[in-house]
């Protein structure tokens, strides 16, 4: 099912992980219900994320997609149901063990003032460090690699708060990379970025997936970018998962009308060949 879609612009190494049919489920939601106090935001969610997949969660504002990502990253505890990480209930796994396998990047994270890029990336090593072993050779090498891999090595001594939005997002991705996790959850990593920096960030995430074999889940607003970069789309509406599959399977004119209340044409993207949404008007 995961045809190599949406990454046509990338220098693809051979597809990481194993073919889809045999792929191992890394992260799963089972009948998950999520609520803020008494207000149920997501209900009856079942979702499986396999090794080496690149999934984008899409949906209108307030559909619960960021909430789902928080639950997958154990930032929020389901009121019923459970999230499984490698078959084990994530809520009962020590948070430090989770942090060695699963990294997450919140929406618009804030770095403390004066913190340099190098220090930020080095904090990614926290789950691997102890009070005695605070800066091993391993830590040093991994941080250097993460910096150079994200093209941030030259900016390592710059305070994060002096960077542009695009550079800042790269720095955070570099930190997540230094954390060394197989799984990476990103909540709207392109927020507040102009189009060329949105592409820049998604190319970087795409390379994490394609070249380093990371399993990626990303919440995205832009359907065209989601279709281009992700192998699998998950569409949500009103806290319920309504469609899941390849971008071609999910991004239909019918679904856009149902989920986004949008009349639209879906054409092949002239560059990547993935579905491209051309809006016509809002449906009432």
């Amino acid at each position, binding site marked *: 099912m995961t045809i190599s879609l949406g990454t046509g612009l990338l220098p693809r190494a051979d597809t990481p992980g194993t073919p889809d049919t045999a792929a191992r489920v890394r992260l799963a939601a089972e009948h998950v219900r999520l609520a803020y106090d008494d207000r149920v935001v997501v209900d009856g969610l079942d979702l499986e994320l396999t090794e080496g997949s690149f999934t984008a969660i899409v949906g209108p504002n307030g559909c619960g997609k960021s909430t789902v990502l928080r639950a997958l990253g154990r930032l929020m505890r389901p009121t019923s149901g459970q999230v499984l990480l490698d078959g084990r209930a994530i809520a009962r796994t020590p948070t430090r063990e989770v*942090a060695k396998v699963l990294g997450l990047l*919140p929406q618009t*994270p804030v*770095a403390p003032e004066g913190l340099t890029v*190098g220090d930020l990336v080095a904090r990614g090593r926290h789950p691997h460090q102890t009070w005695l072993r*605070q800066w091993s050779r391993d830590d040093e*090498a991994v941080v250097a690699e993460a910096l150079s891999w994200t093209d941030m090595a030259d900016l390592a001594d710059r305070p994060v708060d002096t960077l542009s939005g695009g550079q800042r997002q790269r720095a955070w991705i570099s930190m997540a990379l230094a954390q*060394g996790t197989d799984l990476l959850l990103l909540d709207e990593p392109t927020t507040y970025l102009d189009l060329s920096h949105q592409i820049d960030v998604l190319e970087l995430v795409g390379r994490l997936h394609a070249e380093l074999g990371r399993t990626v889940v990303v919440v995205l607003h832009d359907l065209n970018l989601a279709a281009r970069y992700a192998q699998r789309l998950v569409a949500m509406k009103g806290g319920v998962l309504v469609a899941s599959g390849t971008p071609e399977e999910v991004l239909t004119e019918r679904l856009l009308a149902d989920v986004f209340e949008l009349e639209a044409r879906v054409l092949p993207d002239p560059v990547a060949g993935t579905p491209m949404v051309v809006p016509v008007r809002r449906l009432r």
Partner: protein
Amino acid sequence: MSVAAPVRRPGASSGEGTRVRGGRPLRVGPVSALLRWRQFAVPVAALALLVLAAALSMGRGDYPIGIGEVLRTLAGLADGPQEFVVLQLRAPRVVVGAMVGLALGVSGALFQTFARNPLASPDTLGITSGASVGAVAAIVLSGGSSAGAVLDGLGVPVAALLGALLTGALLFALTWRAGVDGYRLVLIGIALWSVGAALVDWLLTHADIHDAASAYVWITGSLHARTWDHALPLAVALAVLLPLAFAAGRALAVLQFGDDTARGLGLRLAGTQTAVVLLAVGLVGFAVSAAGPITFVALVVPQIAVRLAGGSRPPLLASGVLGALLVVAADLVTRTVLPQALPVGILTAAIGAPYLLWLLIRGRRRSTL
């Protein structure tokens, strides 16, 4: 464990030997750490100045002793009246002052890192005003009789400690909502501060004039007539709480990020926050019970320390030593330079506040509020 070795890209500088952070790695067997010379040099320099200020302070008084003689006496090489004056009369005052400054500096650094807000300090969070309520109540409510004098030796420090701890518990209970939000902590702290101040005023208006006067001296924060009896509880508290605070340092570096990032990096958020608040309140409680609320130290010193030592958060060790230096130096100045001996708390406020303003105006750092 390690990253699935990121592929090196041609052209990108990388690899071993690249100094990622401005410091020197220190590795002995399984132990490793990153040393930064400024974070090391600042406490060392401050410690040297502290010893100098302490020796000067112990030499000054009605019976002047040269600084060399003071150091000789402290090393146990002198005897006679000089030994009595230095070790029994003057040293307790200086040692209590240094320990109080140490506790306040570390506590302020803990609060500010925890709340992600440079305005968070035991003063602004109402902890010291809670201690004042306890102390003033002990002075005033026992008033009218000479029992007040007895209470002054034993009851007031304990009452102040209880006041601080109770206020800390109240602050924590009111702020707690499946975790502690730094902004909410500061707002509730300011409210508690006002309540405490109002209670103190109310107690003072009902007090006998003598009690009110002694209560007032206590509120200002003073090292006057401190003895080894004042030093002992504080020394014990520091011996327990300081190592714990330093052990929490690694968690603080991550706690400083937002809650989500901190948990994503594997921090047990609620447990860590609880521990940090308890440590900070405990340190303040014992400091205040020993010398009264010496204001501004916990607020100003961590900010001075972070500017001198660099980094992104107030360094615990530098904050502690600079706090001790500030209190001891301020006490020295009140006893020698000024024509009239003032409580040390007045001077710490007078030195600290303009210095903070100067730093804020001059510094490139914005204050993150």
